[in-house]
């Protein structure tokens, strides 16, 4: 069918909005819980179908479709518009978003089955709002709408991280995520406004045209792009803003899969990809992007090696992969980063959902309290393994080609430093992921022994679920119900399909065709590095030929530092407590005693003067008229004499 892709995208965009409004406004329906969830899932299905159709309708065409409505009328031309911009990139991204959103919503039906109806309704309301905001971000034709949706997804992230708000950690993590990303958003806003000042428009298409015709003033552009990059860094958890993402794992696991792995955190990458022609004008900023990306990737990978919490490992791996994408963009090959974004979205969602299934069954996040799960939960183990292999970049699996592309991009971009770092990260990635696999799914089981004490002493990591469930027991361990399994299998199949297709035939998307020629030794060495990592993990955690303790002591200082998260959080706390609070005290003192003092003095004078002057006010209208008459007289006299 040859329907206009713009209309289809619009339908896709508005369905979750409709769902949100229905659930938000019709409170009794929302409080029913399950029916509300089914309604939301229905809308998400529709949105996904519309997104697929939009993608098909867009097809090979690279001509963007625009649907614009005037929002803020200005002089001559409208100041701001809202609408949708549909082109190959946004349709693919839209498809990813709607797909993961749909799968996560289906998955949550099983994952949150213990949730009371009221909470479930609230959860799906947030989910719908998030889907709408994310799609609005993806489709937005101008930076203003993009920023609004950007803030909306931030809000949804806050709401969903803090979904179990009675839990203090969750509430804290929500606030932390909100403030940390907000820090970057301020930069983003400044960047948009500065850009508007120099270019006079928010519209991406117009900006692109200006860049192509070289009419965009270059002066100060570096500051603008850097500011925009700040926003992207906040959202995409780049160093030093990465601290919020691991903490955000306090939210329900499906939320982590959707928001903090597949979609929202990649918004920064998406933004830079969208505006890559703008960044291309400022190579210095690109260099920063690349180095920060590579450094973030390394830092997060090291951190991931020492984590025992399965979700935190995944979170750090997300940060690390985001660093990959950013580095690719920094090297000037944003398409490679975008490609990795797509594949990563698939297999990272898969990993999170798989982890969620494990947590759901075992009742803890701690991998040292798992083990031997492969026999009890074979399907989960297989899909998790598929995800892990994808992440490690093994051929025939999802992340293989995209990772190669990024490494190739680094090389072709003439950045040997980051390239080396990323190679190291590839090794580390394979190592820490397989550490999780071997500890959790193979080896001796620690589940039965630990479960009683677990329930008694440790606070439940996943809120109500553990409370309400009878303590997980090894005999109860089994693969998750169909509603959770179906998304897992779908994602696994997709990851496999992408991997096989890209390994045998080449890039999936025509737009991602290799823009650079990678040297021949790249592929073998990258895969080799990953395999070495896997082997090391196997030897250490499966065969125990290498003692984990001795491995740890070999990297003693680094391990200590990593356990302390490299003191980044402490640095934030230090800045907050010492610098900000001290400054605030100084300002407070000045305000209280100097500013207020002057004001008090002035107000005291005013009061006295008012007391003295009020006797003039007789309250008699005639006296006032008399005064006015005298005033008019004086005025006329003055006019006559001057």
């Amino acid at each position: 069918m040859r329907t206009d892709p713009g209309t289809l995208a619009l339908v896709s965009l508005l369905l979750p909005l409709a769902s949100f409004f229905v659930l938000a406004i019709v409170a009794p329906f929302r409080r029913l819980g399950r029916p509300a969830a089914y309604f939301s899932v229905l809308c998400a299905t529709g949105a996904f179908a519309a997104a697929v159709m939009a993608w098909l309708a867009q097809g090979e065409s690279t001509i963007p479709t625009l649907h614009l409505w005037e929002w803020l009328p200005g002089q001559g031309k409208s100041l701001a518009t809202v609408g949708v911009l549909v082109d190959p990139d946004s349709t693919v991204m839209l498809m990813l978003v709607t797909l993961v959103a749909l799968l996560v919503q289906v998955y949550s039906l099983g994952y949150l089955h213990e949730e009371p109806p009221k909470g479930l309704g609230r959860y799906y309301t947030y989910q719908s709002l998030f889907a709408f905001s994310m799609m609005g971000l993806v489709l937005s034709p101008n930076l203003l709408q993009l920023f609004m949706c950007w803030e909306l997804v931030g809000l949804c992230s806050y709401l969903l991280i803090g979904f179990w708000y009675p839990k203090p950690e969750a509430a804290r993590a929500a606030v932390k995520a909100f403030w940390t990303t907000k820090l970057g958003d301020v930069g983003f806003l400044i960047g948009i406004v500065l850009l508007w000042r120099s270019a006079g428009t928010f519209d991406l298409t117009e900006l692109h045209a200006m860049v192509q015709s070289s009419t965009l003033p270059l002066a100060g552009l570096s500051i603008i792009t850097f500011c925009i990059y700040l926003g992207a860094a906040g959202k995409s958890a780049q160093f030093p803003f990465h601290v919020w993402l691991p903490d955000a794992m306090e939210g329900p696991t499906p939320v982590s899969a959707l928001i903090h792995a597949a979609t929202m955190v990649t918004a920064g990458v998406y933004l830079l990809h969208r505006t890559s022609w703008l960044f291309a004008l400022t190579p210095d900023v690109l260099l920063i992007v690349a180095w920060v990306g590579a450094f973030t990737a390394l830092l997060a990978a090291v951190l991931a090696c020492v984590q025992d919490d399965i979700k935190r490992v995944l979170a750090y791996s997300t940060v690390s992969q985001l660093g990959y994408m950013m580095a690719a963009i920094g090297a000037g090959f944003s398409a490679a980063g975008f490609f990795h974004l797509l594949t990563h979205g698939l297999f990272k969602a898969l990993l999170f959902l798989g982890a969620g299934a494990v947590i759901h069954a075992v009742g803890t996040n701690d991998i040292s309290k798992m083990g031997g799960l492969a026999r009890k939960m074979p399907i989960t183990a297989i899909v998790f393994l598929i995800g892990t292999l994808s992440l490690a970049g093994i051929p025939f699996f999802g992340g293989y080609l995209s990772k190669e592309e990024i490494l190739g991009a680094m090389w072709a971009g003439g950045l040997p430093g980051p390239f080396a770092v990323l190679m190291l990260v590839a090794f580390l990635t394979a190592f820490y992921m397989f550490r999780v696999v071997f500890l959790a799914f193979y080896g001796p089981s620690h589940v039965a022994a630990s479960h009683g004490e677990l329930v008694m002493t440790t606070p439940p990591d996943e809120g109500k679920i553990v409370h309400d469930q009878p303590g997980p027991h090894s005999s109860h361990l089994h693969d998750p119900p169909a509603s959770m399994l179906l998304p897992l299998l779908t994602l696994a199949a997709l990851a496999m399909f992408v991997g096989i297709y890209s390994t045998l035939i080449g890039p999936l998307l025509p737009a991602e065709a290799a823009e650079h020629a990678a040297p021949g030794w790249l592929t073998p060495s990258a895969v080799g590095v990953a395999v070495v990592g896997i082997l090391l993990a196997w030897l250490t955690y499966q065969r125990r030929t290498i003692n984990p303790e001795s491995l740890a002591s070999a990297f003693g200082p680094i391990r200590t530092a990593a356990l302390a998260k490299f003191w980044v959080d402490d640095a934030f706390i230090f800045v907050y407590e010492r610098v900000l609070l001290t400054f605030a005290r100084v300002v407070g003192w000045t305000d209280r005693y100097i500013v207020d003092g002057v004001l008090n003095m002035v107000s005291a004078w005013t009061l006295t003067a008012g007391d003295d002057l009020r006797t003039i006010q007789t309250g008699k209208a005639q006296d006032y008229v008399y005064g006015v008459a005298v005033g008019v007289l004086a005025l006329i006299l003055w006019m006559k004499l001057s």
Partner: protein
Amino acid sequence: MTGEAVAFYALSAMLVVSALAVVLSKNLFHAVLWLALALTGTAGIFLLLDAEFLAAVQLLLYAGGVVTIVVFAIVVTERLVGETITQTNRRIAGGALVCGALLWLLITTVLERPLATERPIMPDDLTKAIGESVLTRFVLPFELLAVLMLAALLGAIYFARPEE
């Protein structure tokens, strides 16, 4: 002197005298009657200015309406007080000084300006012209006037309603 000038000066004299009587008369009722005379004289001035319609409106609304309302007010308040309201002035010297100075300034200003002496030709039927511009160019103020009248009506009813 033309007949028009004679009429004008006669009317002016009447107007000034009656206006002075309005502000100086000791008896409030007499002041109101003098005001009626002044308003009627103003209608005459309007006639001299070829504004027959305005003259008629002036008589109808002012001399009829305003005087009636004022008379009402006097009677109503007088009954409440139970004695004739005498009306005195205060601050006469100051008031006279200010008003006199203002008058002198105004008159000198008017006299030293070159002002029109010829009347331009206007449409034959001024009533029609007024009516047409009220419903075209000034239709918005006209509508607002209707709203104002309604508000004034409601306000007057509210204020003057019997005490509960």
